[in-house]
């Protein structure tokens, strides 16, 4: 298959169109503005609807409405804009409406910077909105994966009637890389018989709502959601292990730092170190058991978690998974500064030295 050079953000938009996205609602913000820009030019030609909303809050509520009617809907933004969408995301989760949300992360907190960051891990995996809910979070680490995951995200959302987030960062959004438009596996999806798309002779009216008047009913709804989240965790947890067999030090990283780590791995290997990479691909569900089991191997001496976050966010999940079996050190930068290969190499050497 022929390779094409695509910019991450434009590839995200094209992937969504290829996945049958019917509606896109968004508001420009660096570093993801090429997503709405591309959508505005190409989605209407593909028969879809593009609206540049008056705000991020409006965009996510338009998604709620369009997706509630059974259409495939997406919105994209970057960190401060995704904060504004949190109310809508918890409504989507509560009402079990499928949708795809892209977060091309930049430095924070607040308006922060426009450079790449991963400071929204907690927001994405813990639920930035209120209530007990989960969004499945896919974290690609190159443009090809981004394209594949965005297409798959629509199917995953429809299968579980749940919002799915694809989180990347400003670097993946802005960079260009060769990709192939290979076919992405299509899932067998349930009919959207819950959608508010017209009664058409049905004996009841579909209602989409996240409000319960009786606490017992809301409790039961939460039980149902929990069962669904357990099913998602069972079926959809993904990760990648690179050279972990026999490795003494394991770098844990996702997205851009995981890719920078691949270069660090080469340097460390040529210096004679036994080093591996454990890369969560779904941030929620986190590949807890796989990491726990890896930590239990006698050959593994230590972990080094690397993130574009000041003191570590995924680090919490790494600790919860490793459960104290091995020491974990941390390397990270926030605000748009990326950890370098040289820093990773030094930190890995130091972490290993401390346990030997």
């Amino acid at each position, binding site marked *: 298959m022929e390779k094409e*050079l695509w910019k991450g953000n434009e590839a995200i938009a094209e992937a969504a169109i290829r996945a049958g996205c019917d509606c896109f609602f968004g508001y420009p913000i660096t570093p993801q503005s090429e997503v709405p820009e591309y959508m505005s030019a190409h989605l209407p030609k593909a028969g879809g609807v593009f609206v540049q909303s008056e705000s991020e809050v409006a965009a996510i509520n338009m998604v709620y409405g369009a997706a509630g009617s059974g259409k495939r809907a997406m919105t994209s933004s970057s960190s401060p804009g995704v904060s504004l969408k949190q109310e809508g995301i918890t409504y989507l989760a509560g009402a079990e409406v499928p949708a795809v949300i892209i977060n091309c992360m930049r430095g924070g907190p607040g308006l922060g910077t426009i450079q790449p960051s991963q400071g929204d891990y907690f927001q994405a995996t813990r639920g930035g909105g209120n209530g007990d809910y989960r969004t499945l979070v896919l974290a690609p680490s190159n443009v090809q994966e981004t394209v594949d995951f965005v297409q798959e995200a629509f199917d995953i959302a429809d299968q579980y009637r749940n919002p799915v987030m694809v989180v990347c960062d400003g670097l993946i959004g802005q960079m260009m*890389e060769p990709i192939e438009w290979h076919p992405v596996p299509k899932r067998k999806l349930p009919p959207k018989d819950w959608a508010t798309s017209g009664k058409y002779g049905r004996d009841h009216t579909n209602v989409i709502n996240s409000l319960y008047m009786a606490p017992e009913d809301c409790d039961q709804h939460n039980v149902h959601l929990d069962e669904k989240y357990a099913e998602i965790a069972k079926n959809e947890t993904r990760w990648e292990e690179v050279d972990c067999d026999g490795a003494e030090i394991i770098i844990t990283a996702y997205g851009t730092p995981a890719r920078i780590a691949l270069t660090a791995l080469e340097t460390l290997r040529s210096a004679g170190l036994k080093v591996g990479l454990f890369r969560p691909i779904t941030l929620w569900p986190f590949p807890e058991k796989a990491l726990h089991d890896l930590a239990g191997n006698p050959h593994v001496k230590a972990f080094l978690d690397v993130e574009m976050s000041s003191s570590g966010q995924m680090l919490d999940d790494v600790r919860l998974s490793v459960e104290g079996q091995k020491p974990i050190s941390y390397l990270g930068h926030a605000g748009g500064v990326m950890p370098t290969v040289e820093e990773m190499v030094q930190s890995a050497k130091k972490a290993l030295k401390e346990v030997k």
Partner: protein
Amino acid sequence: MKKEIIISGFGGQGGLAIGKNLAEAGMAEGLNVTWAPSYGPEMRGGTANCSVVLSDKPVGSPVFAHPTELIAMNAPSLEKFEAGVQSGGIVFVNSDVVTDRVSRPDLTAYYIPCSKIAEEVGNPKVGNMVMLGAYVAATEILKPETIEVMIREMFTGAKAKLVPLNIEAFRRGMACVE
């Protein structure tokens, strides 16, 4: 083989386009490539740069502190990035704009009068193609034919008349280092 190239200059000098051309040509020759731009407020009237990796193996980090080659289209770029270039690396300097010389003795320097040649060819905008030619000739990792095919595909329809001009600029750039 792995080339890690930083191309840096004022917005409008075509530095980012040099990078895209290198990435496109690398991809056409079956290499693994990445192109990562700096982006931010500095692009308005200031210096913009991009990082390009051309490799026969899958690309890990698309960003790096120590390029194998630096293309400096303006003086701030040379000042900012010269210190980081790998020992034995090459620096290409746009000598019509940059009066400074490369100070490190362990680097090979090429001084390319991009603007002067571009004007001789007939269009000041093709200075970046002159620099691209110099890079291709000095590093020999991409075939000149690949670039020329790409130029023909880049300018079609009403813009097809720009093809000879760009190819001429590219060849004059090559001649600067041969």
